[in-house]
């Protein structure tokens, strides 16, 4: 080792590092050379502005969480999968919902035809949620739920299951995505217009702060923005801007930034341009910490941390020569690890065409296990820190993001929240994303950008192998289940609870969570609850910006 680091910052880092437990593995190269936990200059990992990582010891203490989605067919099917995962030592459950559920529609809706239970589990009423978590002690697990438009109802159902099974609500742990702003910008799974939707998010933040202190009420997601075609810098900027918007909304409600700040987390995409991605992750931590401290007045460092989940880029997967996607995913996963992610989902090579087969999903998991256990990148925190190129890229990402923040601040007359509303309304976000997507497409088309197997090196495509197809039996089952619940429930209680919900929706000073909770307990359906609020809030149609 050349010059060994020193100084007060190093000492502080060392103290923090020493205070944490380490994994029981040799921190040395494959050839047996011991390596330090960090190299380079201050500020060190775990130190403001956290460019180099959110923890002093990073992966030496804990590897990233290897999160793989579960959710298919009926609630009972998924429940069986959950139990299997728990038996094999997992403590985190990750739930994917089917498209009708994500849109607040019941399985019986004409819109649901052919979609029930296909890309995730179908939840119509509390009964489905009870099935989903049957014989699982909600006090012992951490549950991540990927849902946005009807997030409040699904959270209420989760709470109701806990109450019914005698688990204290304040013991519930997990994360609900609930990032409604990016729905208008990219993923498009919205129900109401932006402002009333934001009210629901804020109500949930308040509710969880008061009653579920270990539950993360929003996971601010750039993943879908990138998938929709944005650049890396746009993904970074739009995501963090949405984060600022949630912070401003919560502050306006008198919430404590040090309190809810700790419970915000992020979700980014990891694409194929290796150094750009790493620069993006590092810049995200730095920007978030700075803004939380300087603009929003956070004083608790834990409320300044940009902790994030990463998923490899679904859009980068090609239908041509699908096996080569394994290589793409490996590179993207490595970027996530070098960027300091807290958890990682690796895509399956066959996902360009259909839901992953079991074999493909296993290979995806193995890919990140290789990164974690064979490459040695986990021994050193922020191993690329100090590289002139990586530092420049980090600065460049930050610079581009700050330009976008300035534009939004301007649009909103000094409020990022208002800027986000205006940008949604006037089509700024979708327009920018569509421009970037089109530019990329044109470049591929013109051959200026090579996509292996698509516009070059195309020989050797054997076409797609076996594709997973979901059978229609799930839909039948779910429809019968819903019908029988509707027969059994007390319809007067349902009607009364829905009337109350509509009334509460009309008064912005009332928190919507209690009324939603009442309605779910009466076994009102997801769609009935959505409709009760829609009466007051209306629906949203996006501007035709292409």
């Amino acid at each position, binding site marked *: 080792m050349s010059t060994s680091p020193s100084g007060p910052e190093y000492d502080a880092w060392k103290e923090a590092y020493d205070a944490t437990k380490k994994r029981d593995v040799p921190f040395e190269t494959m050839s047996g050379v011991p390596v330090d936990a960090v190299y380079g200059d201050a500020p060190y990992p775990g130190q403001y502005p956290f460019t180099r990582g959110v923890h002093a010891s990073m992966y030496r203490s804990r590897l990233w969480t290897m999160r793989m989605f579960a959710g298919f067919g009926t609630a009972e099917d998924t429940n069986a999968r959950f139990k299997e995962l728990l038996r094999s030592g997992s403590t985190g459950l990750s739930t994917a919902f089917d*498209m009708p559920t994500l849109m607040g529609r019941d399985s019986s809706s004409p*819109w649901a035809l*052919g*979609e029930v239970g296909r890309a995730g589990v179908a939840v119509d009423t509390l009964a489905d949620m009870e099935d989903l978590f049957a014989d699982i002690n909600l006090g012992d697990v951490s549950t991540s739920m990927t849902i946005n438009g009807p997030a409040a109802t699904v959270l209420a159902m989760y709470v109701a299951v806990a109450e019914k099974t005698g688990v204290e609500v304040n013991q519930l742990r997990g994360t609900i995505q609930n990032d409604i702003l990016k729905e208008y910008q990219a993923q*498009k799974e919205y129900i109401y217009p932006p402002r009333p939707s934001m009210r629901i998010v804020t109500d949930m933040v308040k509710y969880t702060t008061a009653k579920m202190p270990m539950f993360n009420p929003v996971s601010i997601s750039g993943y879908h923005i990138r998938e929709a075609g944005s650049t890396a810098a746009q993904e970074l900027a739009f995501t963090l801007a949405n984060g600022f918007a949630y912070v401003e909304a919560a502050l306006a409600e008198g919430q404590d930034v040090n309190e809810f700040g700790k419970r915000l987390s992020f979700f980014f995409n990891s694409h194929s341009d290796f150094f750009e991605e790493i620069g993006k992750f590092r810049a995200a931590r730095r920007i978030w910490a700075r803004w939380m401290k300087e603009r929003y007045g956070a004083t608790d460092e834990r409320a300044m941390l940009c902790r994030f989940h990463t998923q490899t880029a679904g859009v980068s997967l090609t239908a041509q020569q699908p096996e080569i996607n394994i290589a793409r995913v490996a590179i993207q996963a490595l970027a996530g690890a070098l960027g300091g992610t807290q958890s990682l989902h690796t895509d399956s090579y066959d996902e360009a065409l259909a839901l992953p087969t079991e074999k493909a999903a296993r290979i995806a998991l193995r890919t990140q296990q290789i990164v974690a256990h064979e490459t040695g990148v986990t021994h050193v925190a922020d191993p690329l820190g100090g590289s002139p190129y990586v530092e420049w890229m980090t600065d460049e990402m930050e610079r581009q993001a700050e330009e976008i923040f300035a534009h939004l601040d301007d649009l909103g007359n000094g409020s990022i929240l208002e800027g986000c509303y205006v940008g949604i309304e006037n089509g700024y976000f979708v327009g920018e994303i569509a421009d970037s997507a089109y530019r990329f497409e044109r470049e591929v088309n013109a051959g200026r950008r090579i*996509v292996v197997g698509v516009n070059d090196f195309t020989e050797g495509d054997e*076409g*797609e192998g076996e594709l997973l197809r979901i059978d229609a039996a799930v839909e039948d089952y779910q429809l019968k289940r819903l019908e029988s619940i509707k027969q059994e429930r007390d319809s007067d209680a349902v009607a009364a609870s829905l009337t109350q919900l509509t009334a509460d929706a009309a008064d912005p000073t009332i928190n919507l969570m209690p009324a939603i909770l009442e309605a779910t307990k009466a076994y009102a359906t997801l769609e009935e609850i959505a409709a009760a609020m829609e009466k007051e809030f209306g629906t949203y149609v*996006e501007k035709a910006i292409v």
Partner: protein
Amino acid sequence: MSESRIRVVLAKLGLDGHDRGIKVVARILRDAGMEVIYLGLRQTTDSIIAAAEQEDADAIGLSMHNAGHLTLAPSMLHALKDAEMDVPLVIGGIIPTQDVDELLSAGVSGVIGPGASAEEVVDIVRTAVAAVARSSESGPEAG
């Protein structure tokens, strides 16, 4: 007045919200001189039929990313038949090659698969429009 132009109704049928592809296709068709009536997300067969009638569309393009093409495309074809409309239907999106023949033999006029180039997109639409125009002109009642 002006030269006649190919008019295409573009839409997403059902709940699927992936609109990156359809937006790129909309621009490609515009840049090829076509008039695109962009309906965007969450359309039904009824709303697409109404639009295609009122806009006198030369073609309908539907984008699908949720593996629903084998049910959604036939239901659109049915709706067109019920409405007695001879507007060609082009499907784009994530369509596995193994499904293309089935779609074509069901009556879909063209399939824009993943990775299609701009020229291919334009060509598929032009060919679909020309085929219907030809068959309607060479019919017995022509004149």
